């Protein structure tokens, strides 16, 4: 009997190809384990029976040439899946059944993967702790009553708890990397334009990117390879030759120049994070990489600029939820009254807060002072990175300013919640790729991540650096499966 829980995605693919194990055996394992893990609240919609049926079909007529042959995967509930409810964690979409498939999930199924179910997330991907979901808080398998991070919290938690061999998330300001860091897993936010946004419930269109969340860097390379494609249904999708990221993966980083930005050494940063960063620096040096001190002078302005740009785009994107064409409706005395009641009852507090911020900064008389200003600051932030990339190949920073926190700890203070994304947000504003890898634990035993930021479309390079570091860090989550007891 093969111990499925210890296998990575790449292992599973190899075992299926060698016929050591069937798709049905694997699918049943993850279904059974998911059923025993309800306490984590990772699933919004299960597709278990269908998944087993699909696995049986695969085993009868297997295609071993595809990249994810008969592999069951659960995905963030922000990706539209044809004929399967897609909620974006919101009441307003609680009954929405898409009549079309997102390009990213289509890419997965075309590669042989099977849908296990849809995973919990912050409402419309707005949150850093998975506490804004209409479908309830998600538990971090690391410890009871600990947040898994957000917004891809259900994805991170399901992955860490081994309810799916890998998963996909979306990242607008850190929503893949921060939960990856909080759960001891790997998460990649690709370059803007490399993964199609078609069929993903939109949050902030100039920042949103989908990406892989996996147990290790090899898995991440494989899944990214499947996800990334040019798509004429997304007008910002970029046409270029995609790499064979897994095949080209190497742990040799000799001579690579890695920048350490001094502005990320923020005030009141816990010593553990400082130490973790230093550990990363030492590992790179040991592997023959060169450490270069660099400066990204506008780092401090990234978060305030983000909290103008993202809500502004969100207020526009979420204008479509009016109770007419799909989703929840609350009846009113007249049309306007219906709109106002529908949106008031259909959206949660954080989403309303952001729509209001966005509406305000775009409103007559304030546009120049806020939105235009933020776009100018965005230019300065991008220029910072362009300058630094004349000198280095990649940048190393911590992924988050702290480890995971308790459920409820930060819900009353939006600004303190927003500060979670201080190291991840600049990357989205500049459209760059970045990966978070688990790098150690703090004194409470909670995982901490390091972030490697790359040049645009240089995912292979940051995957290589991550792969090299991963080998030396040799991180393993120590889970006692408390949620199954």
């Amino acid at each position, binding site marked *: 009997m093969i111990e499925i829980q210890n296998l990575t995605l790449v292992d599973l693919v190899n075992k299926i190809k060698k016929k050591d194990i069937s798709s049905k055996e694997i699918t049943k394992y993850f279904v059974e384990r998911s059923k025993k893990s309800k306490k984590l609240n990772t699933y919004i919609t299960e597709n278990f029976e269908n998944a087993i049926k699909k696995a049986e079909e695969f085993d009868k007529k297997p295609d071993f040439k595809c990249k994810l042959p008969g592999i069951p995967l659960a995905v963030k509930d922000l990706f539209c899946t044809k004929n399967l409810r897609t909620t974006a964690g919101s009441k307003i979409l609680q009954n929405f059944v898409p*009549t079309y498939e997102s390009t990213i999930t289509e890419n997965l199924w075309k590669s042989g993967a099977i849908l296990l179910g849809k995973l919990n997330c912050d409402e419309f991907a707005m949150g850093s702790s998975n506490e804004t979901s209409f479908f309830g808080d998600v538990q971090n398998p690391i410890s009871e009553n600990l947040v898994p991070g957000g917004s891809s919290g259900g994805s991170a938690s399901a992955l860490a708890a081994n309810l799916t061999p890998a998963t996909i998330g979306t990242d607008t300001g850190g929503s893949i990397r921060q939960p990856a860091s909080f759960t001891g897993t790997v998460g990649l936010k690709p370059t803007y334009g490399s993964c199609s946004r078609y069929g993903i419930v939109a949050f902030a269109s100039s920042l949103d990117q989908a990406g892989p969340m996996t147990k290790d860097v090899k898995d991440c390379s494989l899944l990214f390879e499947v996800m990334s494609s040019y798509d004429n249904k997304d007008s910002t999708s970029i046409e270029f030759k995609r790499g064979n990221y897994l095949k080209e993966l190497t742990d040799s980083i000799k001579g690579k120049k890695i920048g350490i930005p001094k502005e990320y050494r923020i005030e009141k940063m816990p010593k553990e994070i400082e130490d973790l960063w230093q550990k990363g620096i030492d590992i790179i040096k040991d592997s023959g990489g060169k450490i270069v001190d660099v400066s990204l002078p506008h780092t401090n302005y990234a978060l305030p600029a983000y909290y103008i740009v993202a809500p502004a785009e969100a207020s526009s994107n979420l204008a479509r939820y009016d109770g007419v064409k799909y989703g929840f409706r609350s009846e009113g005395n007249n049309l306007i009254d219906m709109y106002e*009641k529908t949106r008031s009852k259909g959206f949660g507090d954080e989403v309303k807060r952001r729509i209001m911020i966005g509406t305000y900064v775009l409103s007559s008389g304030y546009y120049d002072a806020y939105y235009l200003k933020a*776009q*100018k600051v965005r230019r300065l932030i991008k220029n910072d990175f362009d300058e630094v990339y004349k000198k280095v190949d990649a940048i190393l920073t911590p992924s988050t300013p702290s480890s995971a926190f308790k459920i409820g700890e930060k819900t009353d203070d*939006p600004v303190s919640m927003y500060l979670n994304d201080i190291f991840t947000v600049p990357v989205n504003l500049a459209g760059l790729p970045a990966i978070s890898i688990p790098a150690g634990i703090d004194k409470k035993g909670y995982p901490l991540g390091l972030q490697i930021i790359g040049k645009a479309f240089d995912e292979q390079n940051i995957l290589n650096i991550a792969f090299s570091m991963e080998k030396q860090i040799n991180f393993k989550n120590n889970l006692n499966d408390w949620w199954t007891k």
Partner: protein
Amino acid sequence: MSIDLKTVKHISKLSRISLDDKKAEKLASDLNAIFSFIEKLNKLDTSKTEPLTSIAETTLKLRKDEIKSGNIREEVLKNSPNKNKDFFVVPKVVE
């Protein structure tokens, strides 16, 4: 700068989200905290900086304006909370 209750009510109208007074007060205090954090941007001189409107900075591609999927009325109406056979239904807007 501070956002008063009147402003919150005005934004709520613009956003088409109804708010009761209690919620409006809570929002006013949240928004003030968030905007005092955002005000930091004013310290930067951006008079000579061009705004970054799109990260790819390529012109969007043009395509032919053609119908790729037709006759999908049923599908389009499928998720509507209130519909008849052919249309979305909303409260009466003309007398």
